[in-house]
């Protein structure tokens, strides 16, 4: 399994349609303070099913929709699609999608057709990605793994077993 492409529009500070292509090895993301780097990490957590607004640095889930600037009005929707390559020789494509409207209506997609959150969670499980704490280290959180309670650390090992 590998990450292939991330497409986002209306997600936090990414007002316009944006695309990131990932290649094998190491991809770097750089830029000044406040430019939107950690928003990319929030975006990947969200499309893979994150349910807690607080862990996306908001109060309610609508806070992830572009809320406007001095010059632009707020948008009514945020949409993200993550393309993964799966299978032994990475020839099968799997596109995980999520959309949220300002009125709270939320939709999930698999290869373009609507599905439930459960379906996304099952797919992630099958690919061997494990839980978020395993593949997504948020800003300032690297020390948390050590500070976690002994039973929480256990979850990390159980996850791998």
């Amino acid at each position, binding site marked *: 399994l590998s990450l292939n492409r991330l497409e986002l529009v209306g997600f936090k500070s990414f007002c316009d349609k944006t695309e990131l292509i990932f290649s094998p090895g190491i991809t*770097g993301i750089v830029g000044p303070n406040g430019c939107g780097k950690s928003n990319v990490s929030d975006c990947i957590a969200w499309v893979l099913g994150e349910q807690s607004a607080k862990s996306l640095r908001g109060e309610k889930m609508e806070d992830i929709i572009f809320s406007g600037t001095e010059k632009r009005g707020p948008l009514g929707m945020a949409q993200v699609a993550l393309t993964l390559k799966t299978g032994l020789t990475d020839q099968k494509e799997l596109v995980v999608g999520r959309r949220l409207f300002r009125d709270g209506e939320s939709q999930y997609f698999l290869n373009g057709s609507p599905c439930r959150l459960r379906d996304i969670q099952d797919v992630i499980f099958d690919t061997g990605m494990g839980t978020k704490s395993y593949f997504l280290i948020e800003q300032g959180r690297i*020390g948390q793994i050590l500070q976690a309670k002994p039973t929480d650390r256990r979850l990390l090992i159980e996850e791998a077993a």
Partner: protein
Amino acid sequence: SRELFKDAFERINSNFGEVFRVLFGGGHAEMKLMEDEDVLEAGIEISAQPPGKKLHMLLALSGGEKALTAIALLFAIFQYKPSPFCLMDEVDAPLDETNTDRFIKLLEAYSVRTQFILITHNVKTMQAASTLYGITMQERGVSKVVSVKLAEAVAV
């Protein structure tokens, strides 16, 4: 499942010791199951001892030592069961030059089986990336992605 857990625990633990020694250039680290509990419930204690130092509580480690120990544990788990991808947001911020170099060497070794996405301000880490994306806000409040060459990124 008790057998499965014990096997995972033993192997990750031996990886943890190994990776710790690589990152710190020596020393000793291990996980212990809390004695008084049943294997299926027990929490995990971590002890980490940088080379040449006495063993202290995790709390007494320095900011950089804590980050490096946590990175060692993460890579120990990846060695047992690689994650297809991993995003790390400024994990190199507390590290000095020497430890950043060791972290990057480790990253390069693991990037064969795992795709890494690294958010960083550190020039050395940027240099290790095969693809580099710059995010700018030329229009204030609106993020845009540009693909950058290393020379431009360093200027940020």
